[in-house]
């Protein structure tokens, strides 16, 4: 409705967005390792992601016999790319890299790309356990994708627009999380799922020796691990824009509010998912479709009725 709600950044915008994504993702990884260290009675731990990166960067890259190199590389690099492309339409305060009129659909499309990337990474290695991991992700994705799509529908209906800037602007009076709590929770669960975090880690779990990641080393593994945290960070950012009022807040500039909310939400997600045990791959379908879908459809119905009443009055 209002194309000028946010301002598109000039050419350095994408670089700034990438840098912000990298910093936020690194903070998530650091929090994770600090929590892990504290849990096992060690001090520190915040340095662990850097050590891991150094280790992987000096490690040799290996590949399996008769691997489909092209597909494997596409899949391995894809997770990070998908996260970066998602962030491109995310309004950070009043700034956005690309103010697409269908930003929300773009986000969803990038999310579906993750299906392909995880599966290609598993398939391309021509090895049993990565392939099993890839299939497991498809099973999970089939279960979480529909509830996620409907969860995205709720803010779009309320704002009457698919443009991310409009959705943020529509929350000026009241954050969407207040009257769409179900959509918010479903969205967060889906964020954990598309970033391969617990409880949705079956595609790379210990029982299949790391699944999709079991044959990856060096820079390939680095890209997959970075991709997971980037997707989680991008997901947290979208949760803030869609449900938590984006950059709105007193005193501080709106971009700072936005980043602050995103980082806090990301840390909460990181801490939360450490406490949840992993689901077996076949266990998600029934709860997601039998419980999740009807509940989120009800939520969308409520949102639609409220919105139409609000407009006509």
């Amino acid at each position, binding site marked *: 409705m209002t194309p000028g709600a946010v301002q598109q950044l000039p050419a350095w915008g994408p670089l700034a967005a990438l840098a912000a994504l990298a910093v936020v993702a690194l903070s998530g990884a650091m929090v994770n390792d600090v929590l892990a260290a504290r849990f096992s009675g060690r001090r520190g731990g915040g*340095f662990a992601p850097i050590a891991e990166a150094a280790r992987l960067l000096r490690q040799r*890259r290996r590949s399996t*016999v008769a691997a489909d190199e092209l597909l494997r590389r596409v899949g391995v690099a894809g997770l990070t790319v998908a996260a970066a492309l998602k962030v491109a339409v995310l309004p950070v305060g009043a700034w956005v890299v690309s103010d697409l009129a269908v930003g929300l659909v773009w986000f969803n499309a990038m999310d579906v790309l993750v299906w392909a990337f995880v599966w290609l990474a598993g398939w391309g290695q*021509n090895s049993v356990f990565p392939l099993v991991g890839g*299939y497991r992700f498809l099973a999970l994705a089939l279960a979480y994708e529909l509830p996620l799509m409907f969860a995205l529908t709720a803010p779009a209906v309320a704002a009457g627009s698919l443009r991310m800037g409009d959705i943020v602007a529509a929350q000026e009076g009241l954050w969407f999380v207040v009257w769409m709590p179900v959509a918010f929770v479903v969205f967060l669960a889906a964020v954990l799922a598309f970033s391969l975090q617990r409880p949705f880690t079956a595609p790379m*779990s210990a029982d299949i*020796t790391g699944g999709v990641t079991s*044959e990856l080393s060096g820079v390939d593994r680095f890209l997959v691990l970075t991709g997971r945290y980037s997707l989680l960070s991008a997901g947290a950012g979208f949760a803030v824009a869609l449900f938590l009022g984006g950059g709105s807040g007193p005193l501080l500039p709106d971009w700072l509010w936005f980043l602050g909310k995103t980082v806090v939400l990301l840390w909460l997600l990181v801490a939360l998912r450490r406490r949840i045990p*992993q689901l077996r791959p076949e266990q998600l379908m029934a709860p997601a479709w039998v419980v999740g879908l009807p509940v989120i459809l009800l939520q969308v119905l409520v949102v639609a009725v409220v919105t139409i009443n609000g407009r006509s009055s």
Partner: protein
Amino acid sequence: MGLRNVLARIAVTRCHVFVAEGYAGAGSRMAVERWIADKGWVEALSPGDADILCICGEVPDDQKDAVERLWDQLPGPRSRIVIAGPEHAGRALDGCVEELLDVDEQFRLEAERTATEPEQDDDGGSDDGDGDTHADMDHEGMNHDGGKDEGSGAAQMNMDHGGMSHEGVDHGGMEMPMPGGIGLAGEGKDRDGLDLDALKVPLGPYLPLWPAGLVLHCELQGDIVLAARTEYAFGRGEELPIGGPSGTERAALVRQSDLVSRLLALAGAAREAAKVRGVRDAALDGAALDECRRSLAASGTRLRRNWLLRRTLQGIGPIPQGGAPGEPGGTDAWDRLLAMLDATVAGTAGAGGVPLGLLPDLVRGVEVSVVRLVVASLDLSPQPAPAVDGRAR
């Protein structure tokens, strides 16, 4: 060289260790696991993720080949070590760190490795796929007819791990009917009577969170086990007693909490697994047994409230009522987990192992993750008699 050294220094603060447990290596394995946890290192899930190959206990001669193959899968920089007893773990791993830090030597070794492998590729003929001896050996288990070297084919945790191609080396066998010299999967009837590809995959013996020495030869259709057959890659003896007068009781507690933490880790309950493992380590250190039992009892209470975990384990690997004596009839993995914990708390642990013959029936027609949970829910480690010989022929 400066940057290389800095990277190496940073990298060794977080080594990934692949632990391969050999014959009578449980004590060493626990010591290594402990060292890893204390240092903030990581237990690698696959050799492809490891910097250090750590062999705990003895590896019989017919398994040497398998260990070499694990070693081949470490991407490098890499280091390997054999741990002969729990007391050597710390010093041995420190030695590995020294090796990893020797940047020049590692660089030279890697260069050597990269240089020799293409030659091997060319040795056998013009087709790089077929001529690659590595590829042939490593994919042994995939040939439908079983292959000529079954013992070592079985020894691998995942035969696809093996052959490595490096940058510039293209195993471009795509156009050939047998890509990379690997035999294609055979066919078999699935659960619904449809013809599907059946792939032979041995699980074990060097698999993390797996009873040492056990090999489960699976025929997989997708991720469903069509049929399975068990074997022991090496004989097993009595565990070495730990501690002083209360040795056996303590050993039982250590073994049981080790089993419980393994099952929890596979079920994805990492926190609870770490807690139970902490109790195990405390018991190894000589903490009061009552204290340990209290902690385990607390874990049991927490687990009973964990409905997600219960959902994961309930109905897994049900053993029918009224089997042979000694079999935990009428139980599933969840019951067995709680029973293991309760028995340890009550100090009555140490019931005999489950007859291996049960396993193929329990895993037929289920998904790989379920297979892992079923195996972990049974005490398959203490097989006093060396079961089947490792080499089939």
